[in-house]
């Protein structure tokens, strides 16, 4: 992929998630509430799960971290904690090892690592959920 192609994909697939992120609101009395915070850049989200198996989030951050959270939440609603851990692990590993990603939108998300210094923006919510549910299971 050329850099212009990545920029175009960014515009088509990522920017819409930044403008209208999935379930970008907080609810009362969530079952789980997970902070996703990167102290080095200040990106900070709260991710919530309700007992109706819905996921919500809100907070402040860049287009990449916001789109990443939006895409992630769309995909994990209804999953158990163990399933969320496995799903996050799989994506993070594919991202790390440059493995092909079947999910077209996630493949675009992964391609954004070619923007210098933005890996943490992609991985922020994935690592936060993985760590949270891993700790919860222990």
């Amino acid at each position: 992929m050329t850099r212009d192609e990545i920029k175009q994909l960014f515009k088509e697939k990522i920017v819409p998630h930044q403008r209208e992120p999935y379930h970008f609101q907080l609810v009362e009395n969530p079952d789980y509430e997970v902070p996703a915070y990167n102290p080095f850049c200040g990106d900070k989200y709260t991710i919530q799960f309700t007992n109706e198996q819905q996921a919500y989030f809100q907070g402040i951050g860049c287009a990449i971290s916001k789109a990443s959270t939006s895409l992630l939440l769309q995909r994990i609603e209804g999953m158990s904690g163990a399933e969320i851990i496995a799903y996050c692990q799989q994506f993070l590993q594919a991202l790390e090892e440059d493995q092909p990603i079947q999910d077209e939108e996630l493949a675009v998300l992964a391609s954004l690592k070619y923007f210098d210094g933005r890996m943490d923006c992609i991985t922020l919510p994935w690592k936060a959920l993985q760590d949270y549910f891993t700790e919860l299971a222990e």
Partner: protein
Amino acid sequence: MSDPEVIKNQFPIFSKHPKLVYLDNAATTQRSQSVIDRISNFHQQENASIRRGAYRLASQATQGFEAGRAAIANFFGASSSECIAFTSGTTESINIVARSIIGPKVKEGSNIVVTLMEHHANFIPWQVLCQEKSLELRVAPLNDRGELDMNKFEELIDYRTVVVAVTHISNTLGTINPISEIIQLAHRQRASVLIDVAQSATLYPINVQELDCDFLVCSAHKMFGPFGVGILYVNPRHHQSVQPYNYGGGIIHSVTVNKTDFLPYPRNLEAGTPNVAGVIGIAEAIRFIQTLDRKKINQQLHELTAYARQQLAEIEGLSLVGNPNNSSSIVSFTMDGMHPHDISSFLNEDNIAVRAGQHCTQPLLDQLGLPATVRASFSAYNCLEDVDKLVTSLREMKSFWT
């Protein structure tokens, strides 16, 4: 030497990256060829540890290191070389003042005055000291333009103030603070003053004796010099109060099994083998700076920054952060609907290097209600064309995103 193009030719990074528009000078400046060569020569031809080596290389390295101290003292107008200690950077210099000079003598109920625009390096050491010693941390507020409110500042300093710690230039807003006035206000209440000149040491003439500051701190890497070398100036009236910071070799007068007597300041702060190549590098950087017509460069940078502020303000949806009357060559801004990190990634696609984030000034950004800003900071090798490239790239980005 004052022509940006001529100066730029002295910096090899721009030959390696001819398209690079480097606007991150507040984070670190580039290194001149002379500095790189001097450090390289030291490693290739002169390397030896300093002090107790009775052989030629060690003796020459010691002389080079001490000549560096003298060059720094001279550059800042200090009364003697013995006023200058070498540290690892501005951060360590400030921690030393907090821990080894102010900390040991403060009394409960005293206060320390800082400002809301301080870098974390000149904020957290004081905050922690206040918590440990039950002191009050007083934070001087800013006005709407991003300048210190001097009336309120004056009210905060009283007879129980032990130290006023303030930056000369805000690394986020570009505000130049009236340090002479601040030093006078503090001294009227018998408070000591630390001036952080990390952002100003290179291009603004600073004379510690004229200022009569108590402590002055900066880093070599923002002065065309290497990473890992910091400068600490301590006014002679405080030399006796300086206690060691790290314990180890090189700082002792005598050691027995039961007790150690230490050398006086500045040697009692330089435990362990110091960064000899780094000190020789900053001395060379000072020599380089002294070839620059700083008055003329400052005038050029003043015009360049005014032009940048005016051009940026014309971009719809762009907001400048801070609008100080007396401003240095640092400009912060935000754009509607675009996060600063995304802006800096897209500028990078056009070979423009800026910084995005909180710039280690989280209390300031919290006050401004901003999660982050984009910061462009200029130095002696930047020209109007660099500003035009920044503005063009931002305009194209805006039309691409919307």
